[in-house]
């Protein structure tokens, strides 16, 4: 069984972490300010992404995983993979 979706999800999470670090470094006072898209906003999106990944089993092993769930539907698997790759690129561009 492939682990493409898990790897792609992990990639998104890493991009989120990098974005949080960069945001915190660039604007350390963002939490005190009323900036809409500050560090805390990115952290919240990262938490939402983690909740999604946990619910759907993106990081799960074996039969509980998202890869296992989509094993019979190649088109959906492909769409999800592209979506996650695009999201990782999108977060990367957000820096």
């Amino acid at each position, binding site marked *: 069984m492939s682990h493409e979706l898990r790897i792609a999800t992990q990639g998104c999470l890493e991009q989120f972490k990098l974005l949080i670090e960069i945001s915190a470094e660039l604007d350390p006072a963002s939490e005190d300010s009323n900036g809409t898209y500050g560090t805390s906003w990115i952290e919240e999106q990262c938490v939402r992404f983690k909740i999604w990944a946990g619910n759907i089993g993106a990081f799960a092993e074996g039969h509980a995983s998202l890869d*296992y769930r989509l*094993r019979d539907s190649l088109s959906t698997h492909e769409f999800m993979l592209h979506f996650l790759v695009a999201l990782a690129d999108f977060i990367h561009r957000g820096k």
Partner: protein
Amino acid sequence: MSSCCTFLSLWQISYTEASEIPLTDIPYQAMCFGASKRIRLRHLSLLANFIFQAIVSLRPEDTSETLERIDSLTGPNGSIGDASIDDSTSSAVSSSFQGSETKSVQDELTPETSAENSLPEKRLPGIERAIDRLFRFSLLIRQPSRSSQNVKAERFIMKDEDGNELNESFAGFARQIVDHCYPDAPEFLRAKLSNGIVIRRKRFLYREHHQKKLFGVDTLREDMRQDLKYGTEIEETDITVRASKAANELSPVETLAPKLLRPKETNPSHTSASALQNQSLLIDTVLEDTKSNQTTAFTATPSSSAPIELPRPPKPVPGSKEFECPYCCLMLPIKESRASHWRYVITNSMRLLSRAGSLSPSRLEVFCTYL
């Protein structure tokens, strides 16, 4: 490739300014005509830098294929999935807690200059919408409906304690009961009723089995244990050799780690993700830009518009490398007082204090006010 050209032109400019030697003969002339060692080294480092940047610029992420793929999933302004959205649809982009406001998709899709699109404020809302779509997509994939559970339940194989299949025998038993209770009823009604009893029984057993798996009960091990229960005691003692634990003996883990620091052990779920059948999903419903429906953890905040305000970190003594957190009373490195770390310190302090039960009413009030 544009970045390659940029670096090449930069390299050309710096080289010609430094040595005024034609570009075409750079390495050869630099070596043959006795150019100074410093200039040669500079050129070599520039050349190495150019090659490195050229390799980086040609990495797979920036290939035309990848860009096309991303563009197919992203909208005109780079937001993921906006390409397939009806422009006339209006939506609330996100909850007010996250500071975004209601605006129409038409506004979102308005073509803008590349300079404006490059602003993080223009790109970051796309992340939120993408995560919204992931949630909708997961709902579509999982199909958490009672009807889908019932379909799976009807395929459930009932077994007795010895592992024998009971489907046929239970169906016959149900039919006998129905025939006995309603001897005058029409045949098709009796068949329908007995079939309904069997299906209902299967659903009940399926859900019971599923709940056990969700709580991490190893059903296979339980089955084996049941098998052993009916075996002879002599066989069990011969096969299973368990180490007896001394009364006051502690395991190395228990001695090394204090109780509070040990994570709570949980059994992993033994459920298996239901396979998505190879059918066409309504992807358009996933990509619809509807109101961001977030959990109450994000939306049920006391303040609906202002972001969460945290108490400010204490001012450390100048020159000191540590400071005492006024909430958890721990000595923390000075870097924890920075804004990026302070949020984590505060939330962690609250968790520790609330668990230990030592949160005084006044501090609890402070935390409740701020968090």
